[in-house]
């Protein structure tokens, strides 16, 4: 197609750009949030992290135990920030009713007639005529400027937090078999539905298509009961890895078979006939001819099923235990979502980490994905 720079093509580009921005903004927001300081995450929008903003914070001075005497006065001197990150202070206050009463360099007067001065790097000097008697220091309210700052602290905290690393491994242990086993089983199944003739084939195919619509919530309890009976009979645990592999295989069977069937029926008839004439059995035909041709389809189904299993929450909750040795990543994330209502930095970072694997897989295998997915559903 010719690439003219017409008005319509510019309009088209702008329209596409709008779509792209709208689509990426939410995820971008999450990404930026995961790099921000935990203190500001829940206080200001992520778009403010690119500019210097003003923040109001409260710090406490030391109490009577830190005092020393000098020239007849009692002093307490220290830095407000302690071991926290220092900021550039512009104004301060000594009561919650007026948080920026004083400028840097001013002397503030307390009710008990002691005085305090504050420098813009947080060093303060608190002077009193009489000995300090309170263990509790006084609150100092500061207004400071907070320049744009990003940090990997959140990622460090989440990645090394107990349980997330293990949850990562657990999820792989669930996802890989839950993707390969359906692929193996369903490819034989789809082949037989396409290229083998047997009694009841059409009915079976119709059943598979019908099962596409069964909501998996329906199956949870009957299957778990079955597992329990089975487990009791054979003395094994009901909730186990093989159990969840088969559960995922079951839930993914219909769509995997359907997609494979869609793809296989587009393969040329002549090839199969030729192989038959040569004396090859179905099994040989399958392994030697069909499988190599179906790699794109396999790849795309692998991606789809892997994504689905990796992102699944409900099946993982029901068929595996919640203890650290079995919990999957989405369940761990949901736990963080539920229990860390106020630790947004863990939420955002955790979400991003759990997204990383599916995104990586998608981007590296996308050409197979598109090719395999559309074959068969598109004419020509």
């Amino acid at each position, binding site marked *: 197609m010719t690439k003219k720079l017409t008005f319509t093509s510019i309009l088209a580009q702008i329209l596409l750009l709008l779509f792209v921005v709208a689509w990426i903004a939410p995820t971008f927001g999450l990404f930026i949030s995961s790099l921000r300081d935990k203190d500001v995450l829940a206080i200001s929008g992520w778009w403010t992290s690119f500019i210097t903003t003003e923040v109001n914070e409260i710090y406490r001075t030391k109490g009577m135990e830190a005092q020393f005497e000098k020239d007849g006065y009692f002093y307490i001197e220290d830095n407000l920030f302690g071991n926290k990150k220092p900021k550039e202070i512009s104004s301060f206050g000594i009561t919650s009713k007026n948080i920026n009463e004083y400028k840097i360099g001013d002397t503030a007067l307390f009710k008990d007639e002691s005085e305090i001065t504050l420098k813009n790097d947080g060093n303060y000097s608190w002077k009193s005529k009489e000995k300090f008697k309170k263990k509790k220091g006084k609150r100092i309210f500061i207004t400071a400027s907070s320049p744009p700052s990003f940090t990997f602290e959140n990622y460090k905290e989440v990645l090394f937090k107990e349980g997330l690393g293990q949850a990562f491994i657990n999820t792989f242990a669930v996802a890989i078999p839950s993707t390969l086993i359906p692929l193996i089983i369903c490819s034989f199944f789809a082949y037989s539905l396409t290229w083998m003739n047997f009694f009841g084939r059409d009915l079976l195919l119709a059943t598979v298509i019908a099962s596409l619509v069964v909501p998996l919530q329906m199956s949870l309890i*009957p299957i778990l009961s079955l597992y329990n009976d089975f487990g009791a009979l054979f003395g094994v645990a009901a909730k186990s890895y093989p159990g969840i592999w088969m559960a995922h295989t079951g839930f993914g069977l219909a769509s995997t078979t359907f997609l494979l069937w869609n793809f296989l029926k587009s393969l040329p008839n002549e090839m199969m006939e030729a192989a038959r004439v040569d004396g090859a059995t179905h099994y040989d035909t399958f392994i030697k001819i069909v499988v190599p041709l179906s790699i794109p389809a396999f790849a795309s189904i692998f991606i789809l099923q892997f*994504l689905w299993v990796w992102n699944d929450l409900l099946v993982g909750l029901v068929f595996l235990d919640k203890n650290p040795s079995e919990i999957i990543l989405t369940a761990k994330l949901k736990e963080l979502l539920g229990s860390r209502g106020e630790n947004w930095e863990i939420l955002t970072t955790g979400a991003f980490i759990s997204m990383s694997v599916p995104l990586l897989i998608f981007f590296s295998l996308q050409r197979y994905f598109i090719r395999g997915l559309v074959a068969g559903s598109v004419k*020509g």
Partner: protein
Amino acid sequence: MNIFSLALIVLVGILCFVLFFHLSNLILDYYGRVNKKGYAFENSIRVIIFIAPAFIVLFVFIIYPVFETIRLSFYDKIGRDFVGWHNYIWAIKDPDFRRSIVNNLGWLLIVPTLSTFFGLVIANLADRIWWGTIAKSIIFMPMAISFVGAGVIWKFIYDYRGPGDDQIGLLNAITTSLGFEPQAWLTIPIWNNLFLMAIMIWIQTGLALVIFSAALRSIPSETLDAARIDGASELKIFWSIIIPYLQQTILVIWTIITILVLKVFDIIYAMTNGQWQTEVLANLMYDWMFRGGGDSGRGSVLAFCIMIGVIPILVWNLYQHKKDQQS
């Protein structure tokens, strides 16, 4: 369990299936050769080998639960006493049930339509633009994100703080900068459904986009070039040539997304848990099945309703399949 024992279990598990198929076929070949049975006999055994695992899985994980659910819908909450139509009558009278149906209908009307429409438009736009592939990848990206992750992402869009406080939700930030009062978006009845649907559209448009993209390749370029030479505008080409050509694909995508939407659960679960009148059938079913001791009778009725809601689509699909076979 450490990583090595896990890896071992994984390997063994997968090998089991590979070996099953390989060995059974090998044995069949050997047996057939030795005993010189006919091709037909071999064939029927082979069919059994090929379909047996899948058939068993299909039966155990899909067919059996369906019948079990239908059976349970006629029993009381712990599945002990037979209660006949009692649960169904309850459902018809229950206001939550009626609201769920209305909500589901809303979802079914809006989400597939918009996802398909956006997918089609973006596919067309991206096709002609040199950075189209990057655009497609970006728009497809939400499909790779779990629903829980999407929940976290959109938390930062819909969040609400009081008027006068700093807003950390993007939507409220835009609203307040335009001078309006911030809104608690997810609590506004009726509108909150639309806000939740936006999340699903955000996710599903990528699917539609990818399929349309490939489909567009199949339109013969001579037709399009001829139309352009004739002076037809891009818009006219879109409406009169592209859409009719893609009719089949449009319907397929619309069907797939409709089925996904009918089963929608996670988004609503993570964002509002069905509160503020956003509940859909899948959430209602989950609530009844798994809350307060569980009521498998009522939960099963709801599961059944989700299923029969898809029967029209199923019938239509089979009809298409028959048509396909005949052509």
